[in-house]
């Protein structure tokens, strides 16, 4: 029994992680090999699975020719590989060849017996699983949906007049209570040492379904319509079907695979492999490609004069945004329009780990990062009779169902129940303890969450008159990947509830009292307002749950105006990338209107570019990068090194930020590199499968990763994380957490410390030392003088510039 589990666990590791499409979470597709160095891992998966992990050689050469890969950077990396010459890099052709070793062993069935197992088994197997798991596409549920998957199959076999399994041998295994994979493998493969290879061969022929079933086995709670399915049962059934097919077709005249075929020295992930020369060459190119951009950023960041900016104090507004790269440009515009606006970045759930229970919702929605398990729920109840508005109801019935808007996540006039012992109207009592999760926070919990939030972003004093929490969501239509466009820190939901909740809580006197004791002094006249920004339409909406006095109302109105202009400018910047033409002479309002309309058109497969071209993560004060144009490529997390001499706050930031941002970055990276194997291919032919995921056509496997449309303009480079902190502090944080260390040490992300005082860079794990001084090798710095020059930058994401006064 132990061995069987062992075998299964070995397999499970290699099965990709596939979550339900309604909770789309970005993750690193190669998570299972995180303990190895990045390029070695890339080359290995390339040799074993046939994944393409680099761009094409000519694409790199093209980039070099156009000056995006710098000669000096290339030279630097070339010198590390003495066996490779300039000619190899620039002229010579190589027999670049990707080949999958997985599947070869099992292919022998076809070569010898002329039976294509996939062709006969996949359609039936997929249909059985698909019908069983279906969440509501089909009119009738499959019979026996209340049983677990294997019992359902047995029932089907028992009652259906047509058998699934036809041969005696197959039936015998199907009805075997033990469901012992080893036993059936013994019949099929024969040699125990090949079992693992055989199972991998088999399961990786349909990574999508295997991945989803593995996921649902571990997290059945994510299905609305509950089903019970076990990964081992699924494998067992597939094995039985194979056995049956072989037995039926060959009428018993066949031998176990292992008896006559041998896997051609199957390379394991932990074994040493010889890499090809072209892999080294592509590696050099990739590194040079990455550092050509990084150096540009680092030089600009260093030379960008942050001290000048620091002189102004006491801002009128403070806006706290999500860390998301899409928010970086709107922050830039807001600040440049009004110097009285100070912005911050933090993961978009604003430390509010909650389940949200919308009014009349039948389920709870998790509104915080996936790994966190919230302890309480926040409920929504209507404030007035706005439910029976027949007009809006009719509108919803006719067209509304197509639109997925973050604004609709909460009702027009509703109220959040967030306190532990709130007075709840009698007719709303159902919200208490809904699905057994307790309702609301107590004051202590509220204060501790806000304390966390304010300390991580370094906002502990000098609060402005109005402080905004602005979450984000994305409107789109006809888009199967809609969940991937919303806030990742809210489990693929819009951040509206969290932002609104954070503002409400921060406005509470009792909470402020508690916060004061913890050293965060919020002046009595400061008010908090929650809001949500739609990243695809560039619209913003505020939730004003707290009566504003006339002074703050005027201030708020002013900010709304600024926001409108900033949104228009932001819309222009984005529109440039949709059309590929410069829009500088157009009326900003018109452009914005077009962007709004475009976002929810039926025939738009790309409502926005989402995280495409993300490449940076800057953790530090906003001042260090405030006047830097980084396109929309940077995740910006505010952090004040002065408040954190021992790195405790930094640890709490990194623990969340590294897996999330690197997950996004690497999912884009690998989906771009190999859109067939690690991405989802073109989404235009996708077919929604049982509300679980998408597949191509009728008999296809579920697709994993990102579709071609999402990564079309992505620049595949790894994440460069710049932290404004003493390298020693960072190092101490890292060595205390093994997982974080793995990300950095194995170069799945690059980590650079920007010393706050000496203004020097320290690169982590580049040589023998944990960190060493790094001087970027780039001298040209672009300094913009007027707005027209800024427009020219929009065309290309690779541009970096300093915008001092615009």
């Amino acid at each position, binding site marked *: 029994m132990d061995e069987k589990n062992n075998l299964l666990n070995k397999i499970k590791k290699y099965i990709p992680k596939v979550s339900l499409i309604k909770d789309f979470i970005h993750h690193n597709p190669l998570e299972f090999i995180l303990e190895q160095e990045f390029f070695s891992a890339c080359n290995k998966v390339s040799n074993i699975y046939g994944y393409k992990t680099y761009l094409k050689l000519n694409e790199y050469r093209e980039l070099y020719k156009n000056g995006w890969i710098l000669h000096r950077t290339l030279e630097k990396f070339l010198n590390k590989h003495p066996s490779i010459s300039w000619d190899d890099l620039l002229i010579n052709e190589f027999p670049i060849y990707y080949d999958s070793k997985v599947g070869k062993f099992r292919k022998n069935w076809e070569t010898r017996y002329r039976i294509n197992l996939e062709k006969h088994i996949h359609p039936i197997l997929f249909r059985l699983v698909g019908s069983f798991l279906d969440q509501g596409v089909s009119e009738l549920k499959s019979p026996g949906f209340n049983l677990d998957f294997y019992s359902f199959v047995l029932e089907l076999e028992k009652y259906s007049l047509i058998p699934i399994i036809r041969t005696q041998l197959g039936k015998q295994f199907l009805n075997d209570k033990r469901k012992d994979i080893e036993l059936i493998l013994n019949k099929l493969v024969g040699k125990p040492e090949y079992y693992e290879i055989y199972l991998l061969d088999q399961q990786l022929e349909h990574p999508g379904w295997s991945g989803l079933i593995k996921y649902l086995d571990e997290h059945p709670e994510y299905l609305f319509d509950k089903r019970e399915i076990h990964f081992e049962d699924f494998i067992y059934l597939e094995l039985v079907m194979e056995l049956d097919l072989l037995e039926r077709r060959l009428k018993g005249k066949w031998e176990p695979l292992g008896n006559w075929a041998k896997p051609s020295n199957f390379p394991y992930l932990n074994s040493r492999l010889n890499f090809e020369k072209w892999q080294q060459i592509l590696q050099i190119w990739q590194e040079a490609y990455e550092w050509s951009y990084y150096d540009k950023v680092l030089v600009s960041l260093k030379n960008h004069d942050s001290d000048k900016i620091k002189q102004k104090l006491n801002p009128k507004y403070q806006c706290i945004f999500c860390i998301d790269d899409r928010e970086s440009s709107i922050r830039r515009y807001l600040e440049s329009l009004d110097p009285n606006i100070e912005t911050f970045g933090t993961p978009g759930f604003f430390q509010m780990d909650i389940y949200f229970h919308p009014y009349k919702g039948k389920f709870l929605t998790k509104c915080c990062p996936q790994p966190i398990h919230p302890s309480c729920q926040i409920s929504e109840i209507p404030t007035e009779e706005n439910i029976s508005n027949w007009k809006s109801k009719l509108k919803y019935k006719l067209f509304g169902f197509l639109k997925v808007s973050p604004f609709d996540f909460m009702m027009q006039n509703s109220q959040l129940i967030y306190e532990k012992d709130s007075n709840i109207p009698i007719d709303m009592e159902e919200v208490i303890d809904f699905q057994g999760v307790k309702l609301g926070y107590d004051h202590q919990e509220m204060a501790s969450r806000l304390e966390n939030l304010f300390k991580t972003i370094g906002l502990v004093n000098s609060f402005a008159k109005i402080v905004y929490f602005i979450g984000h969501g994305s409107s789109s239509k006809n888009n199967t990947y809609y969940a991937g466009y919303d806030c990742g820190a809210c489990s693929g939901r819009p951040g509206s509830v969290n932002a609104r909740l954070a503002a409400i809580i921060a406005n509470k006197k009792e909470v402020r009292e508690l916060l004061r004791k913890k050293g965060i002094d919020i002046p009595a006249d400061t008010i908090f307002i929650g809001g949500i920004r739609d990243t695809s339409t560039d619209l913003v909406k505020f939730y004003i749950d707290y009566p504003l006095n006339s002074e703050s109302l005027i201030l708020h109105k002013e900010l709304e105006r600024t926001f409108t202009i900033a949104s228009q400018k932001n819309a222009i910047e984005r529109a440039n990338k949709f059309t590929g033409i410069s829009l500088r002479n157009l009326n900003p309002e018109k452009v914005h209107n077009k962007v709004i309309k475009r976002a929810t058109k039926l025939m738009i497969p790309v409502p926005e570019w989402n995280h495409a071209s993300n490449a940076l993560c800057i953790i530090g004060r906003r001042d260090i990068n405030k006047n830097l144009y980084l396109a929309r490529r940077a995740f910006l997390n505010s952090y004040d090194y002065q408040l954190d001499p021992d790195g405790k706050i930094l640890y709490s930031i990194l623990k969340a930020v590294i897996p999330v941002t690197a997950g996004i970055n690497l999912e884009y990276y690998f989906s771009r590199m190999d859109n067939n194997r690690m991405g989802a291919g073109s989404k235009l032919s996708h077919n*929604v499968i049982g509300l679980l995921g998408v597949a191509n056509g009728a008999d296809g496997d579920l697709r994993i990763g990102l579709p071609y449309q999402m990564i079309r303009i992505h620049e595949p480079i790894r994440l460069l994380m710049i932290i404004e902190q003493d390298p020693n502090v960072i190092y101490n944080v890292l060595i205390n957490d093994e997982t974080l260390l793995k990300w950095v040490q194995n170069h799945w992300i690059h980590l650079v410390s920007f010393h706050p005082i000496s203004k020097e860079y320290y690169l982590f794990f580049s040589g023998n030392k944990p960190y060493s001084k790094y001087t970027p090798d780039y001298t040209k710095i672009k300094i913009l003088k007027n707005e027209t020059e800024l427009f020219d930058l929009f065309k290309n994401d690779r541009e970096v510039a300093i915008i001092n006064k615009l």
Partner: protein
Amino acid sequence: MKYIEFSVNLLLIFPVVTFFIISLLPKSYEKTIGLVSFVSLWFAIIIIILLLLELIFNKVYFLDIPELILYKETGFEFLIDIFIDWISIIFLLLGSIITLIIVYFSKTYLKGEEGFKRYFLIITIFYFSYNLSVIAGNLETILIGWEALGLSSFLLIAFYRERFIPARNALKVFSIYRIGDVGLVLSIWATHHLFHESKKFYDLIAMGNIPKLDSYSYWLLLFISLCLLMTASAKSAAFPFMAWLPRAMEGPTPSSAIFYGSLSIHMGIYLLLRTYNIWSQIQEFKYILGTIGILTSIIGYQLYRFQYSVKIKIGYISLANIGLIFIELAIGWIQLAIIHTILNAIIRTYQLLISPSSIAYMIRDQFFHFQSKKIQTITSDLMKKIHYTLFHLSVKEFYLDILFDRYIFGIFRKIGKIFNFLKPFHIFILSIIIISFGFLILNFNVYSKDIIKLIYTSILSVLNFIFISRAFGERNHPRMVWYLNIFNHIYLILAIMVYETISKMNIFLYVTGVTVNGVVGLLILNKIKKEYTQDFNLNDYHGFIYIYRWESLVFLISALGLIGFPISSTFLGEDLILSHIEPDQGFLAISFTISYILSGISIIRLYCKLFFGPFKGGENGTTIHAA
């Protein structure tokens, strides 16, 4: 009246002009390409409306326009003919509006997609062939449109040709379409013999009921109707051809919408409407049509109820409706059938276009209105049995896929395997003997006795059958398939020449068609073999289209020429030959039918397997079959 003729011609000229403009535009001019198709469709719609108005003002309800005579000899005339009546106008409008919507949708939806230009070219081919079929005035003209429809369908299913499943499914759908096409070819053949000329629909309507049916003509008429029904069923995915429909949903969503939701799939109904005068007098046929309608409806509905994927579900409910329309036709409710067709087409287009959003709105709906259904406690064993059996039948698609794959095509494959011992050498020797023997019979009277002729044609038919099955089952030698298909044509022409005198022109037409296409194809095959000897087989899909872009196009054209697609003289030749087969020469007719189907499939399979699918090697990376 002149003006009407002109505007009808414009409907065919517009797509052709659009096709050439688009093909001349560079790939990157996506906006222009989209705009050109869009504008030309608007023009087409305006023309149709003007046409409608003119017909109303002139009080013309039927109009026949003899377009051009492709070929004429005594007793045989190949005429492109146009016929307009209210049914054609309705179908023209429906088709143009839906194509317009799809083009409008696609020009934004497909932006930046590899194959943007190709997509619009195929849509234009589709639109042309749709128009041609709809305004066709006789069965021959419909056949041309019909084959082009099938081609555009095939190309769109294989739009993502770098993947394995679309390539395989395109081939599968083509096979079924081929069966349908042969029905049309046979019905043309039988009509010739029934009326001793190519009947126009106009004449049929003018004639009213066909007078004085003796039992011979009655059976011939039934045969024609059944052939037409086969064609209609294959195109409309009616019983028993239903299994191709889910497999066709491989292209971009809008293309699935236009083909399998709305237009292409209703063409079968159009054919039945058009030939209403032919079959409406035969009671037996109406029963058969009704039965097929009922079966399609029931099975389609059953498959729909248990279907868990959105697009396929829409496809099946569309089918269930097509079944109903068949029943309506059988009863004789023409108007209802047309209204039903229009509504079905429009609704399915809409549903398919918004099918990606289903995941969002269904989940939202579920979130607020979910009710965990009570577990049905079926106590009766019998009910449980029925429930599970129906479910299982849906999972297995009522065995309809297997029916064709294993029991129809599989049999030929098996026969082919028996003759695997025939090597190219044997085939050459055999062919030379046979051909020279044919010359003997033709040129020396001594040998041209009836009994010898009979024996000779029987041998030819048998050999032809063997060869074509062999080509069908061949997996290792692509060139062998090609050779066998060329010989197939030569045998066919020999068989007929023995019995009848065919004009030299006739033979010339046929032989040039076969030779030119045959040689061109062979040159390309040789080229590929030289460079990729290892992969030059039919065991897998090889994706050579990535290496040989132009060659693949030329090869496709020559392959189409060889299978008698209406772009080459082979097509004309094939029809000519057919017209020389007499109804009492049953074995020749059967031999022709089988070779028509199998040669078409074997050649297109050759094309698919060589040029489609993932290309192994190179920098493009790998793929898995199931994706």
